[in-house]
């Protein structure tokens, strides 16, 4: 029973990792850009959401209850802000870096991460914020009573949300015109241009979707442990998730997240006493390293075969 509880708690932590990894995958698929700022985007979205809900006046950090928005309105407003941000990123950064090396695009997202983090600090303040969207808190009584399992409700909500999000994204990517255009742009810029697909529109859409995914991740992490600046560090945990799952695979991001979540919990609980604990902190990276040695394209990545 204890084993099962460990696995479940690992799975649910994995869902959280997967949510962040998902944002990475979306942008990487469509533009080949490894967006280092994805974690900070989750933080920024969370900060903005809390700020709007508590009626915080940007920059002054004073709250005014009269300005406080109800949760649903604040979510819509935050989504709108993330879309504006996506538009600005395309206009100010990506447009000027078309056809540049991947490493240059990556460096630009590194810069973006710092700008966003600073902007979040200036606008909303750097203190830890409580995000109360009215999501259920505490353990699920039903599971505790009937199965004797201790599972946090918020984690179940996160798992459910992630499931819905992935289903919607899968349909969107596979079945719609824009989804096809996204995949087309990911495969071949020139060919996509030749059939009249606009790279700029696609990039704005991709970054908007990644912004929304970041918001969901921010809300889930924030509801669990408050909106704090260490949130941007979960981006680092998403890296091994991506190496496991493959950078271009949405199912890969999910499965990779789950494996890492479960793996590190199990390693901590069963391996910890043997070699002295704190395994949770490095387990993911060791696993990623092992994958890099034996299966560099990840579980679901496309194997790169070069014809010589």
């Amino acid at each position, binding site marked *: 029973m204890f084993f099962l509880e460990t696995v479940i708690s690992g799975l649910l932590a994995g869902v959280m990792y997967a949510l962040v990894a998902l944002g990475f995958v979306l942008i990487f698929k469509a533009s080949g850009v490894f967006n280092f700022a994805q974690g900070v985007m989750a933080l920024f979205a969370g900060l903005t959401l809390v700020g709007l809900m508590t009626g915080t006046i940007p920059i002054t950090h004073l709250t005014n209850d009269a300005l406080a928005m109800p949760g649903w309105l604040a979510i819509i407003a935050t989504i709108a802000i993330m879309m504006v941000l996506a538009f600005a990123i395309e206009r100010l950064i990506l447009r000027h870096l078309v056809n540049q090396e991947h490493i240059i695009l990556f460096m630009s997202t590194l810069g973006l991460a710092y700008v966003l983090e600073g902007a979040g600090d200036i606008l909303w303040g750097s203190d830890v914020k409580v995000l109360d969207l009215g999501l259920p808190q505490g353990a699920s009584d039903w599971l505790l009573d009937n199965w004797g399992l201790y599972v946090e409700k918020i984690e179940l909500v996160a798992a459910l949300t992630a499931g819905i999000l992935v289903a919607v994204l899968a*349909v*969107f990517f596979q079945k719609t015109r824009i989804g096809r255009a996204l*995949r087309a742009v990911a*495969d071949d810029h020139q060919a996509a*241009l*030749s*059939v*009249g697909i606009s790279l700029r529109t696609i990039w704005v*859409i991709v970054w908007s979707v990644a912004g929304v995914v970041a918001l969901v991740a921010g809300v889930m992490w924030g509801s669990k442990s408050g909106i704090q600046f260490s949130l941007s560090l979960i981006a680092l945990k998403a890296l091994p998730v991506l190496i496991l799952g493959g950078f271009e695979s949405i199912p890969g991001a999910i499965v990779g997240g789950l494996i890492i979540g479960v793996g590190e919990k199990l390693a901590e609980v069963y391996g910890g006493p043997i070699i002295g604990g704190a395994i949770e902190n490095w387990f993911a990276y060791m696993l990623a390293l092992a994958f890099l040695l034996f299966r560099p394209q990840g579980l679901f990545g496309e194997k790169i075969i070069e014809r010589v």
Partner: protein
Amino acid sequence: MNAKTKTSKKAASAPKDANGSGAAQKTARDVLLSVEHVSLSFGGVKAIRDVSFDIRKSEIRAIIGPNGAGKTSMLNVINGFYHPQEGTITYKGEKRSQMRPHDAASHGIARTFQNVALFRGMSTLDNIMTGRSLKMGKPIWWQVLHYGPARQEELKNREFVEHIIDFLEIEAIRRTPVGRLPYGLQKRVELGRALAMEPELLLLDEPMAGMNLEEKEDMSRFIIDVNEQFGTTIALIEHDMGVVMDLSDRVAVLDYGQLIADGTPAQVQKNQDVIDAYLGVAH
């Protein structure tokens, strides 16, 4: 299949021979696209030097020349990938100094690439469906829901794409990821994607490169059929002289970025500059 190919080719070229190349007699009024005094250079390398020629409605126009003559650069200028430093491009009566890829596509210019540029991870069907991008414009929220108008639109365009698949005889590979297809079929799928755009001007960059005889005959037949059934204007780059002479109404010859000959296949074949360019000449 061979016999059918032969006859359809004969049928296609017979009237042209009789009239001394039908399309060549069309007047200047029928010009679909013309480039005038176009020059393009990359740093110090002059890829195209002061080239002028035109493409008339409904003709098959070949652009030939030795390797590095600037043929592909010319196509890239026409569909807006390259922006020439000098000269003008007049398309459908509208004069401009450069094309933009999106404008070119939305005004009916489709193309294929020398090194097949398909979306490798996607199926044949999805690849050809991307060619319908500009014909579909239902808002994103309907698409996310995959319902209502977006679904109608999807089905309508899917039907169109199925016609193209039938036309190109690639029903069997509809669901296959194109990365797994043999080269000849990939070229065919790429043609399908271009056709899905319902182009007025179709640019084909070496549609038969790397194909065996049978595949070449099939491809020739498709090109002729597209030209005759849909009246699509075609500009093609090809190295196989037999194919070029059979298919095209007029031929433009480039060498070192310059236009060295322009005329009917028969005229070009006899041109001394062309012979020199291909065989080399002692200086």
